[in-house]
């Protein structure tokens, strides 16, 4: 006997993916159900199969994947047995999809309004004039600027956050029963994300359509979902009411995911000695003339971690490029250990170069795929110290031990390593030079949360042992809390605030810092509503 409100019932779903001529399971027997007006959050790390399940809810499998078992029942119809024609009638009309990257999912050749109107016109729902009106209405409710005119632009003329909302509007064009949101805010800045989240929450609650919200971020899903499903490796870990799971998770995996954002570094008192790295009044611009940094100054002391925080366009990556010599500054100077460093990488002394090393964001491209691990880690040793083969081998083994990898890894190629392991190899490569400072450029941003946490713990252990300084560039405030002693907040190429971590995070602070801190989602399901209320109050007072 079926509940009248039941929209979607998926039973024992099995999906396989093709790898090297073989079919391997991606989703192994998962059940999903969704009622009218409900929001279901699907949570998991990469490889959990959440996106695949979201697509399967529409009866769709990506190229190289196939639905091999189970039933997908939508309003009494089994989508696995439906014809292509029937599926086309349901997709976009009764079940709509919002993709992760709006920029890639809009057709570059057609205006936004044209793409909005496509499906309503196909189903002869309304006249073009009515469609346009509906579009403007949705754009307004989604807080888009210039709702009357934005529909007549091309996708590349609109910013990322706005485009994402335009995609949400397009999904709602036919008033579907279910909307599937596939990581819609993952690629956005935290301050943009909160705008998109509130827009989504607003339209969903008003229209009473059901939604499946897929994400890896538990805090984000906490704001929207009524129920949550936790997935790992294609299987269900835990499922239940959102508030219950957040307050009392039953499984260890869920508890780990919750704990990830709660790490805080102990406070270390500030040091009064000469800084190891001194950045003084740096102004820089790219070759095209576009200015990126204005008068940036900060210090990094021995044995301490300075976090440079900012969103895209803040200039935090450019700071790293100036310090390392890839981007010569137009004004100002960088001092290392009291000595001024030439703005040009090519003119710097090899011995000085040894003292600072860098770890990059994407471990896949940070290591040469044609080099074995022993060459990746061993090269800095032979380059800086000219050591013989035996010495190098001994040192490489030591380093592997430090990064917690088995000695057998020396003969492996990067293609045989996971993302986290590759990042560890990058850390070892940096350590091989015995540096005094390591610049970490978003080193955990491309990793799954649990893996990222292990890397952060490893970095902290190494700092305690070897007394190195870190310059940590990141956009993620949770990471800052976990690892930083001092914080530098950047916005549009300028330093807006800096100081010890506690000071910066405690009010009163700069307006932008306030915006940034308040935009980071917290595990509390009422967080979003609170923040929005507070901001509305502020606007009224101003």
């Amino acid at each position, binding site marked *: 006997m079926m509940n009248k409100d039941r929209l979607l019932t998926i039973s024992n779903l099995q999906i396989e993916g093709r790898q090297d001529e073989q079919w391997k399971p991606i989703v192994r027997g998962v059940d999903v159900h969704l009622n009218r007006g409900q929001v279901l959050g699907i949570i998991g790390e990469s490889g959990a199969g959440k996106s695949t399940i979201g697509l399967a809810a529409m009866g769709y499998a990506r190229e190289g994947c196939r639905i091999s078992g189970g039933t997908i029942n939508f309003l009494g119809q089994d989508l696995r047995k439906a014809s292509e024609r029937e599926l086309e009638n349901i997709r976009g009309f009764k079940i709509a999809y919002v993709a992760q990257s709006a920029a890639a999912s809009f057709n570059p050749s057609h205006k936004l309004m044209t793409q909005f109107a496509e499906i309503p016109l196909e189903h002869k729902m309304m006249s073009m004039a009515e469609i346009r009106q509906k579009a403007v209405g949705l754009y307004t409710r989604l807080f888009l600027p210039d709702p009357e005119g934005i529909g007549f632009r091309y996708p590349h003329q609109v910013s990322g956050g706005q485009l994402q909302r335009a995609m949400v509007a397009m999904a709602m064009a036919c008033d579907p029963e279910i909307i599937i949101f596939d990581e819609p805010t993952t690629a956005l800045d935290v301050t943009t994300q909160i705008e998109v989240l509130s827009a989504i929450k607003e339209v969903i609650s008003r229209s009473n359509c059901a939604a499946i919200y897929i994400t890896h971020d538990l805090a984000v899903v906490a704001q929207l979902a009524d129920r949550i499903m936790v997935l790992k490796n294609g299987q269900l870990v835990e499922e239940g009411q959102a508030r219950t799971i957040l307050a009392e998770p039953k499984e260890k995996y869920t508890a780990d995911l919750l704990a990830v954002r709660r790490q805080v570094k102990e406070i270390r008192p500030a040091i009064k000695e000469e800084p190891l790295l001194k950045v003084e009044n740096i102004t820089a611009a790219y070759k095209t003339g576009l200015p990126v940094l204005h008068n940036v100054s900060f210090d990094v002391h021995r044995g301490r971690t300075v976090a440079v925080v900012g969103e895209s366009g803040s200039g935090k990556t450019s700071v790293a490029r100036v310090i390392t010599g890839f981007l010569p500054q137009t004004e100002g100077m960088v001092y290392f250990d009291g000595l001024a460093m030439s703005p040009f990488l090519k003119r710097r002394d090899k011995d000085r170069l040894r003292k600072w090393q*860098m770890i990059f964001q994407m471990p896949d*491209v*940070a290591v040469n795929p044609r080099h074995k691990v022993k060459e990746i880690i061993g090269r*800095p040793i032979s380059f800086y110290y000219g050591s013989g083969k035996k010495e190098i081998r001994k040192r490489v083994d030591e380093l592997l031990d430090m990064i917690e990898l088995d000695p057998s890894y020396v003969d492996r190629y990067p293609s045989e390593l996971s993302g986290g392991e590759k990042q560890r190899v990058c850390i070892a490569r940096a350590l091989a030079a015995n540096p005094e400072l390591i610049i970490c450029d978003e080193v955990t941003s491309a990793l799954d949360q649990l893996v990222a946490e292990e890397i952060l713990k490893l970095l902290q252990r190494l700092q305690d042992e070897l007394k190195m300084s870190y310059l940590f560039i990141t956009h993620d405030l949770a990471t800052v809390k976990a690892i930083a002693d001092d914080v530098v907040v950047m916005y549009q190429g300028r330093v807006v605030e800096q100081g010890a971590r506690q000071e910066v995070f405690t009010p009163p602070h700069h307006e932008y810092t306030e915006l940034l801190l308040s935009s980071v989602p917290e595990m509390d399901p009422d967080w979003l509503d609170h923040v929005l209320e507070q901001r509305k109050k502020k606007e009224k007072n101003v």
Partner: protein
Amino acid sequence: MKNLIKLLKTSPISARFGLIVITLSLIVALLAPLLAPYGESEIVAQVWLSSSHDHPLGTDQLGRDMVSRLIYGARNSIAIAFLTTMIAFGVGAILGLIAATTGGWLDNLLSRIVDIFMAFPTLILALMILSILGTSIPVLIVVVALLDSTRVFRLARALAMDIAIMEFVDAARLRGEKTFYIVRREILPNALPALIAEFGLRFCFIFLFISSLSFLGLGIQPPTADWGSMVRENSGAINFGIIAPLYPAGTIALITVSINLVVDWFLQRSAQIRA
């Protein structure tokens, strides 16, 4: 060795066909004097005889044995094309890799020059240059090699630029590594598969190009046996219904098709490996 055999087992028919033809041609080219029944310029019978027991493919326009001419032609045509490709590749690839790695004014200068040369119709340019400088073999090789090196430059540079923006190259630069090390150890190993494929394609193009020049009378001159010139020399036979020019033209086609089939398979495999 084991890997090679495994590789061959998974190859499609077209690639195997190509490999067999290429191997045979190399053998013929290397052992030409031992395999040819008659001398390169030896006149042995009447003009344009049809195939017989002594002359399986008949004779050419001067009465020389077609089979022997084809065998010696294999040696000459392939050797000259190979040498030209080596020069074109050497010059183009090295300059391209260096330009991409160093950037700056060197890159700009070389790219501008290459852009201008690539905007010319190569055949026309080659015709004109050769009409002025004459058609001795060294001149031919140098002219064609330099003209074709522009394409190799473009490809090598594009490859290197794709690789050079990856962070492991930045990591090497940051260490203080010199350009020579970066090109040799970081970039080249990653560019090698594509460069090898391009070598095959360039050889085909150069081979066809020199044959066309010879066919038009401006390439390799008689009495040297060369497939392109042989097509030209025997073209009159068509009017009598004798298919003599088809033999050298056919061998040219056979070699270029074979190389293309093998390169295509090679490219498909590397695309699969990367995916």
